[in-house]
């Protein structure tokens, strides 16, 4: 029961936070807890008013100061992989320790149960530590280390943030999830064109992390680390390739993007090298730091109850006593290389575990890749481009690179040589036999009158759409299919957009119609058209670009080519009156448009390739009748080649399964694999079924009552039989001798115990009576029903006084608690503010609102509704849960629930159903189904749970489940055994054993934890905890809670003092 209580306490994440202030947790759980706590408090209050609770935890004391991170004692650890941890995780680790310090120092006279409640959400922190470990493990291999200064610096900043963070465990839990998401992102979006987007996704999330104000550089660094690692592994090739690129660039200086790309590569190389150098420079210090972090990380991993439980609120962070933290994702080595550039596909390579026997199918893959290469070369050939064209070379290089990364184990012969492919292509073209299996869908977007339709006409060399200079020629979205040089091309023409801010409504309409149009057949590439000769300065197009971004999402720009029409227009006069050069003009103009797009997309890394177009009939042509720009470029093949290249690269991605969003769906919201382990652990979490109000206070089921019944008769009136006892005043107590005192307290305790037992029993009896009465009332003729119902209802709606916030003595205007007292009104709706009392100074502290209600339909079916909306500066959270249960037949009940919650930026909807059979007296089986819709991914889950009550003390819960989404399956199971004191809840001793297994992607994670709580003496509790997982990470913690020796609490001040003493030193260092 303790364990359950803890679990349930943890379910309402916001609430435990508020408990400090006396705001009690919600609903049934809360009420039950209040009941328990009240009992206990009564017991304690006699002893002393302020009972300090002091947790002495081995390593946690050490954590007291982040300075001491370097000499964290490792005694407590069973085994720690000496894994490094990236600095992001460092942030977490120290966050965490701050949190522990805070909890341990708290002297609020809380019961241990309560204490656990606090710790439970806290313990859930670092969900992807393992992930981090995994990544770093690989990093260690290549000896990339954070440079020491930055590492310590991050600790510093983290410390300050942590302060704030501690006060908001709920938000941190939230962040955990974000973390998870970002990790997901890491996993899921790893394709060429997604890379830029991913970075942008990643960075915000990392900034959003609890230590948001801390250096982003930390996260960046980690990003660089992963990147550099990747790059280094490929360094040689890349550098040589880069050189090749440069040579080519020298030859043709027309398009600048590939060059920049190459430069960026080189830049990355240098970065990596720099890091390496730094690594060699910095000596043991760094390693130590990192190692310590790793240690800590491992601890944290171990300490988290179930580390995958980290949804914002409805996810139940199982507290202590639940299974071990092993439902975490399999460690995946995910790295991105940073290849950015010309064709707008930054390529991010995802490295699958190289152990999947890839070498067999590698040959096949390579063959297919070769086919793609040939196809592309044929396309290029048809467009009259040689393999030495910048764009062609770039694409070939990327294909080679992708192939290499993909098939690391395979031979790397011919990765960059395209001679064979070239020959094949030429042969195929020459014979003219083989049909070219290629088609490309291009969408054209742009302001009105820039020449969208005209461009399409030019591409097909015939008038597909009528154009008129003065009137909007295109009224609706339409597509045209045609062939260019035998290549099937489908182009979607769209109505012109309007630049004015006031016209954005109109634009939205147009864009929505486009969106509908392209839903079925999404374009492979988008052309954004603008006029070369129109100087759209002063952010004139910003509203338009923003509207596009809003409607299609920033991802539209990842696959976009900027097309500048009227390319034959003369450049304007330069500042000195002389005409500026054409190239300069084009460069400047492209820069303006690119910059505008970057701003609109909110991604500064975007580098849309630029292509020039001239549709004018008077355009200069070459001998072949192709239109030639003033710089000698034949624009049409160039434009088409750019478009085809992107399609080809997308195809290659699909082939190599570089985990990318489906190619050709650039604007479908980037789908990422739903976080299966997280969903699975949520699914496996036992959920209490909603109960009728009259059953509200009962235990999970009537079983306990039944079990207890036998003992009822025992010491029925033991308490009453005791001789009268007069309590002594404090002054009197102080006069007693030591032995007298002991005897007195013993007696007092005994009496308390008996009294409480009696109370419990009475309560139980009362409840049973009520039930009987209700049952009897039902049998009665109808006139009695009202009466009985009133009675039973009356019992249910006994207004539980909502403990208000503890009000401070003064009416300080800065203290929001005075402002947000709320009345516990008599309506069934329970509305409470969600306060963040530890927010910023002068902050309102009003974060959201919490709404609860329990309905009863037909007196039989309880429907509980709870919702919470909270919003702070960064994000808004919504959680809603509607649950209902129906008892049918003896011991059978089915519950149905609908959850809605924000997960990252998306809303996740979960529909779940559970059926519970209590077929035997001591056994309860539960089977459940759940469906989650997150983003556009539907996840289905199935679970089976069995709860076995061996005897009064021992109970066993076994859970197993599987969850699947998009062909990806994760299995998990857990075992949880609880051994309680005989006269629970009075006896405080408790022993819990948890085991959990999780299998995802063939990666097995097994973990177990043991926790025991023993009372030593009257006022002291010993809590021991140990856990271990199959990756060798584990933790042992020993904790003594005592309310006897107040002076021990002073120990907690030591780290504080030390910290204060160290401050000046650090300042000096800082200067």
């Amino acid at each position, binding site marked *: 029961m303790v364990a359950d209580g803890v679990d349930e306490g943890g379910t309402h994440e916001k609430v435990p936070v508020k408990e400090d202030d006396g705001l009690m947790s919600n609903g049934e759980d809360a009420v039950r807890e209040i009941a328990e706590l009240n009992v206990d408090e009564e017991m304690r209050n006699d002893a002393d008013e302020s009972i300090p609770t002091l947790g002495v935890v081995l390593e946690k004391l050490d954590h007291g100061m982040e300075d001491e991170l370097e000499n964290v004692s490792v005694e407590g650890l069973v085994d720690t992989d000496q894994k490094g941890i990236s600095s992001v995780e460092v942030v977490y680790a120290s966050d965490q320790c701050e949190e522990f310090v805070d909890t341990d120092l708290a002297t609020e006279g809380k019961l241990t149960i309560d204490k656990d409640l606090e710790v439970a959400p806290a313990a859930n922190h670092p969900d992807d530590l393992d992930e981090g470990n995994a990544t770093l493990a690989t990093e260690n291999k290549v000896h990339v280390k954070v440079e020491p200064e930055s590492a310590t610096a991050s600790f510093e900043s983290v410390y300050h943030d942590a302060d704030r963070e501690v006060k908001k465990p709920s938000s941190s839990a939230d962040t955990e999830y974000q973390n998870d998401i970002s990790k997901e992102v890491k996993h899921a979006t790893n394709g060429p064109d997604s890379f830029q987007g991913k970075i942008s996704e990643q960075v915000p999330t990392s900034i959003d992390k609890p230590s948001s104000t801390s250096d982003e550089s930390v996260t960046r660094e980690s990003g660089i680390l992963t990147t550099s690692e990747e790059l280094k592994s490929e360094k040689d090739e890349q550098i040589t390739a880069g050189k090749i690129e440069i040579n080519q660039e020298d030859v043709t200086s027309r398009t600048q993007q590939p060059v920049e790309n190459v430069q960026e590569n080189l830049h990355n190389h240098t970065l990596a090298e720099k890091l390496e150098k730094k690594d060699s420079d910095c000596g043991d210090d760094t390693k130590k730091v990192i190692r310590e972090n790793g240690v800590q990380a491992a601890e944290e991993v171990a300490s988290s109850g179930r580390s995958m439980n980290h949804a914002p609120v409805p996810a139940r962070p199982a507290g202590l006593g639940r299974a071990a933290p092993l439902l975490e994702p399999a460690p995946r080595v995910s790295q991105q290389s940073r290849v950015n550039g010309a064709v707008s596909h930054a390529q991010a390579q995802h490295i699958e575990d190289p152990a999947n026997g890839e070498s067999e199918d590698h040959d096949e893959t390579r063959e297919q890749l070769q086919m793609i290469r040939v196809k592309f070369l044929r396309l290029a050939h048809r467009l009259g481009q040689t393999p030495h064209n910048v764009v062609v070379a770039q694409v070939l290089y990327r294909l080679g690179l992708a192939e290499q990364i993909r098939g690391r184990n395979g031979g790397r012969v011919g990765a960059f040589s395209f001679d064979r492919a070239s020959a094949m292509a030429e042969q195929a073209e020459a014979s003219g036999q083989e049909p070219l299996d290629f088609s490309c869908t291009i969408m054209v977007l742009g302001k009105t009158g820039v020449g969208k339709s005209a461009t399409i006409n030019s591409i097909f060399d015939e008038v597909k759409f009528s*154009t008129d200079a*003065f009137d909007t020629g295109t009224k609706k979205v339409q597509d045209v299919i045609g062939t260019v040089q035998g290549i099937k091309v489908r182009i979607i023409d769209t109505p012109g957009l309007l630049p*004015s801010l006031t*016209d954005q409504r109109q634009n939205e309409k147009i864009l929505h119609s486009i969106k509908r149009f392209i839903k079925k057949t999404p374009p492979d590439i988008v052309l954004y058209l603008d006029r070369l000769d*129109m100087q759209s*300065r*002063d952010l004139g197009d910003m509203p338009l670009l923003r509207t596009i971004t809003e409607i299609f999402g920033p991802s539209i720009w990842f696959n976009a080519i900027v097309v500048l029409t009227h390319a034959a227009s*003369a450049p304007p*006069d330069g500042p000195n009156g002389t005409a500026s050069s054409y190239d300069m003009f084009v460069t400047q103009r492209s820069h303006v448009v690119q910059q505008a797009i970057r701003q609109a997309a909110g991604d500064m890394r975007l580098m849309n390739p630029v292509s020039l177009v001239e549709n004018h009939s008077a355009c200069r042509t070459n001998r072949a009748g192709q239109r030639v720009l003033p710089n000698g470029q034949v624009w049409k093949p160039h434009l088409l080649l750019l478009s085809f290249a992107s399609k080809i690269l997308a195809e290659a991605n699909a082939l190599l399964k570089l985990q990318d969003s489906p190619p050709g769906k650039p604007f479908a919201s980037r789908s990422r694999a739903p976080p299966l382990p997280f969903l699975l652990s949520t699914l496996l979490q036992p959920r209490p079924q909603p109960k009728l109000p009259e059953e509200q206070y009962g235990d999970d089921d009537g079983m306990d009552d039944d079990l207890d019944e036998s003992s009822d008769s025992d010491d029925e009136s033991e308490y009453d039989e005791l001789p009268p006892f007069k309590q002594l005043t404090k002054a009197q107590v102080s006069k007693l001798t030591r032995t007298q005192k002991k005897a007195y307290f013993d007696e007092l305790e005994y009496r308390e115990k008996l009294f409480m037992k009696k109370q419990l029993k009475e309560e139980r009896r009362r409840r049973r009576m009520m039930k009987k009465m209700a049952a009897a009332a039902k049998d009665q003729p109808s006139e009695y029903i009202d009466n009985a119902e009133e009675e039973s209802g009356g019992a249910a709606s006994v207004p539980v006084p909502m403990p208000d916030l503890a009000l401070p003595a003064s009416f300080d205007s800065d203290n929001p608690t005075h402002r947000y007292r709320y009345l516990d009104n008599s309506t069934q709706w329970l509305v409470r503010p969600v306060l963040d009392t530890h927010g910023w100074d002068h902050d309102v502290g009003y974060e959201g609102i919490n709404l609860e209600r329990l309905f009863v339909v037909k007196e039989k079916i309880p429907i509980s509704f709870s919702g919470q909306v909270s919003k702070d500066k960064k994000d808004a959270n919504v959680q809603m849960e509607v649950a209902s249960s129906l008892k049918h037949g003896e011991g059978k009940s089915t519950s149905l629930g609908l959850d809605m919650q924000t997960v990252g930026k998306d809303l996740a909807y979960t529909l779940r159903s559970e059926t519970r059979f209590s077929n035997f007296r001591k056994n309860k089986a539960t089977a459940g189904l759940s469906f989650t819709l997150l983003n556009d991914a539907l996840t289905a889950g199935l679970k089976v749970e069995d709860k076995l009550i061996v005897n009064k003390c021992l109970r066993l819960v076994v859970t197993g489940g599987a969850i699947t989404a998009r062909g990806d399956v994760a299995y998990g199971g857990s075992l949880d055994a609880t051994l309680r004191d005989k006269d629970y809840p009075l006896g405080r001793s408790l022993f819990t054993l948890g085991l959990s297994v999780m299998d995802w992607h063939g990666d097995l994670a097994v973990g177990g934890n043991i926790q025991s709580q023993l009372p030593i003496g009257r006022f002291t509790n010993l809590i021991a905890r140990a856990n271990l997982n199959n990756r060798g990470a584990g933790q042992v913690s020993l904790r003594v809670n005592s309310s006897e020796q107040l002076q021990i609490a002073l120990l907690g001040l030591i780290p504080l003092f030390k910290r204060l003493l160290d401050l000046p030193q650090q300042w000096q260092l800082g200067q």
Partner: protein
Amino acid sequence: MASQLIREWVGIQQFPAATQAYLLDLLSKLKQQNVSSLTILVMGKGGVGKSSTVNSVVGERVVAVSAFQSEGPRPIMISRSRAGFTLNIIDTPGLIEGGYVNDQTLEIIKRFLLDRKIDVLLYVDRLDAYRVDNLDKQVIKAITDSFGKEIWRKALIVLTHAQLSPPDGLEYDLFFSKRSEALMKIVKMGARIKKQDTWGSSIPVVLVENSGRCNKNEYDEKILPDGTAWIPNLVKMITDVALNGSKAILVDKKLIEGPNPNRRWKEFIPLIFAFQYFFIIKPIQGAIKSDIAKEARPSWELRDGGGASRKF
């Protein structure tokens, strides 16, 4: 508002002889009409070539022009005098920023123009922009709101980038007329010029080509594709507009700030008072009186022996 330095118009000597002669002729014509100074206000969207046009007309590089950056947000007044005649040209920054009319820029321009007389407004746009949109309308509306509808009587629509070959194989003249037609339509709409205002349809349209690549005729004058030298033509149109009989627009405080809101409806104050007296105060008094008359004396007052008589 620093007083503008009035310099000798030396730029005029840069023009080809034919242009010079023509311009001086025009100036003397103006002097004959007792016009010794002319203030020209140049307005339009950003990047259409306002400053370039000013430079072209003055014949000097007086305003910095850059194709990709917008000039500062301040209007500039260029004053040049020649033979006792002063030409003031006020170049203004582009009115559009971020897809809407920048009110701040407009405000700055208005303040700059305070107590000045505008003889001619040059509304500048490009000839080679095919479409007119809401932005154009907004700019025109902003100008109208600032200086009144009447300013369009003194307006001249200037189309820059005149040297172009029209798309779709259109005739140049046809293209020009279509474009000016479209612009006129939007001007009328934006300025809310009613159909019956005949002057509305007579806003002249002038073509301009500021590029150094502009074709030249045998007198070295920059010419339009139709062969006319455009600088003399522009100046001639300017003088025509200046002398077209409509009053020049004096930008005074009232025009800028609008009527003083404190004085509005002031004459209605006594009326309101009277209304209040007769229809509010009187009925209330009456109601009170009738209430008092109807009131039953409370028991305690009767009991306490009505020594105190009622007063009110």
